[in-house]
């Protein structure tokens, strides 16, 4: 029973962070209809941001204040100067273009920072907290809290502000939104900036709990695609549910099936959903 509870808790914690990455992907897809293959590299940049901040004596979680705006600006620049020119030439070209971007960023990072596995060791990360006899890593718990706060902030931004309304309008129909006076080019920049900032923030939050190395994005991105598709691409609640589900399935699988196959279980789950509900668990995603 304890094992079950333990794996449910740790699965939910990691799952929430996966969800945060997937939400960034899904928002960008919802508005711009592009699948950003370089999203994992944005997470990686966030992780390294936290690492360098830690090396400079700043707590990784505090460095969020610096890296979120920085990643937001970086995302806007990528959209403005790179993607905006390619998107009109079609979905598949954009997919290939972002795959190229992903290779470029990951391998530049490998070149400058080398491929060593790095870790961030925090004083308060040494011993886990034990509420109700369940072991909970403190940095992971902080990351969980911040991930919920940031994702909710994004949700409120989209639901309550004028800009957020414009973003949702663009997601529904860019042409009509433009006719209503929405500056679609600006909305695209803001959306891509937000997606990138969310990915970067997730990277910062994950950094104390994972090994970090320049090609870590490759593994994370595959997982998060799966999550976003599970929940139905374009749906934020779907991405969150998909993330938590994936985290829990993985951690239950590691305990009850096999550690070696815990990642494979997630993919099999994914294929199962594709087979039965191609539009995602909540049926809101688009298959064409």
């Amino acid at each position: 029973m304890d094992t079950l509870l333990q794996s449910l808790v740790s699965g939910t914690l990691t799952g929430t962070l996966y969800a945060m990455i997937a939400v960034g992907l899904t928002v960008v897809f919802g508005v711009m209809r592009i699948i950003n293959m370089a999203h994992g590299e944005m997470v990686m940049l966030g992780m390294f941001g936290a690492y360098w901040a830690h090396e400079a004596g700043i707590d990784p979680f505090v460095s969020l204040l610096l890296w979120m705006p920085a990643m937001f600006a970086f995302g806007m620049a990528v959209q403005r100067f790179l993607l905006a020119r390619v998107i009109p030439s079609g979905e598949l070209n954009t997919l290939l273009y972002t795959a190229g971007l992903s290779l470029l960023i990951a391998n530049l990072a490998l070149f400058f920072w080398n491929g060593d596995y790095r870790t961030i060791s925090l004083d308060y990360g040494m011993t886990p907290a034990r509420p109700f006899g369940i072991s909970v890593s403190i940095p992971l718990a902080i990351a969980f809290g911040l991930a919920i706060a940031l994702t909710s902030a994004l949700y409120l931004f989209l639901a309550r502000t004028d800009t957020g309304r414009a973003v949702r309008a663009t997601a529904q129909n860019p042409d009509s939104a433009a006719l209503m006076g929405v500056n679609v080019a600006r909305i695209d920049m803001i959306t891509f900036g937000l997606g990138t900032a969310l990915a970067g923030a997730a990277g910062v939050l994950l950094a104390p709990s994972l090994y970090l190395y320049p090609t870590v994005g490759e593994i994370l991105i595959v997982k998060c695609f799966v999550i976003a598709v599970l929940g139905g691409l374009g749906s934020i609640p779907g991405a969150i549910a998909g993330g938590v589900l994936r985290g829990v399935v993985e951690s239950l699988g590691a305990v009850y099936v096999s550690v070696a196959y815990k990642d494979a279980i997630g993919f099999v789950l994914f294929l199962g959903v594709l087979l039965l509900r191609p539009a995602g668990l909540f049926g809101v995603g688009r298959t064409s």
Partner: protein
Amino acid sequence: MNNSAIGAAVARKGVFDSRLMGAAGALVLLLAPLAAPNPFFHHLLIMVLFSTLLGVAWNLLGGYAGQVSFGHAAFLGVGAYATMLLHLKLGWSPWLGLAAGGALATLIAVPIGLLCFRLRGPYFSLATLAVAEIVRLVALNWESLTAGPQGLLITQLPELTLFGHAVDWESKLPFYYIAALLALLAMGANHFIAQSRLGAYLLAVREDMDSAEAAGIDTVRTRVVALALSAALVGLAGGFYGLYFRYVDPDAVFSVALSVEMVFIAVVGGIATTGGPIVGAIFLVTISEVFRERFQSGHLIFYGLFMMLIVRYLPEGIWGKLRALLRLAVGR
């Protein structure tokens, strides 16, 4: 009537041109290793031909049918492991194993296709990524069969006598001619398919799936056939990989990077062209050899950069652009 006569003449000339090019290509391939009798040069030629084979195979599905797969390494790995295992465990001749590798890759492509082609466009691409990861994880963890991360090693290839001569497996030449044969086979198949009814179906599927379906094309079947053909060629390439390097491990043959290389070859050379993958392969092998010795994986920076530049400025690829210029110069 006049028009159709001209059309027939053009079509005849087209066939003549491609036959001429095929023959010239075969002659160049036959003589190329004599240009410099040095093993490193031969190794580079082999890598170019191997990459061409991969590019052509990916292009059948990704270029003609517009179904971008990021998971083709799965077929390469299956082909490589099948060839190696049939030889090591059952003592099959490697050459029979090579064919079996291609056949097995085709066989697993069918259920994968039926599953993944429920999805369209980018969704399909993501599904292939996931399928390839599953296959890689299985290869990594099914240790009783695959020896897991240790990989499989063939210490010595069995003797083979051809036209009364024993084939010298320590030399690179036999591998060169096998690779040349496979690459020619792939390009021939590609050329044939592009001009066949199936080729027309593939283009229809790429341009507009709904219209293709409305016109009576069974789009799922068409895509599955394209995937199976593509997988067969990649499976053969995988078997060749195993025999040439005499060593496979999951990271070498199942990696996402390898899938991306196949995409790169086709995209840089020219989507949906027969000759494009050769150009892409020469490009890829040159970049990787130039940078591999200076800094590890530095070549991947340039793969990424070139992929972005090509998609942005030259979406028809290097060969596609050259061909268009050439046609313009000749005045068709």
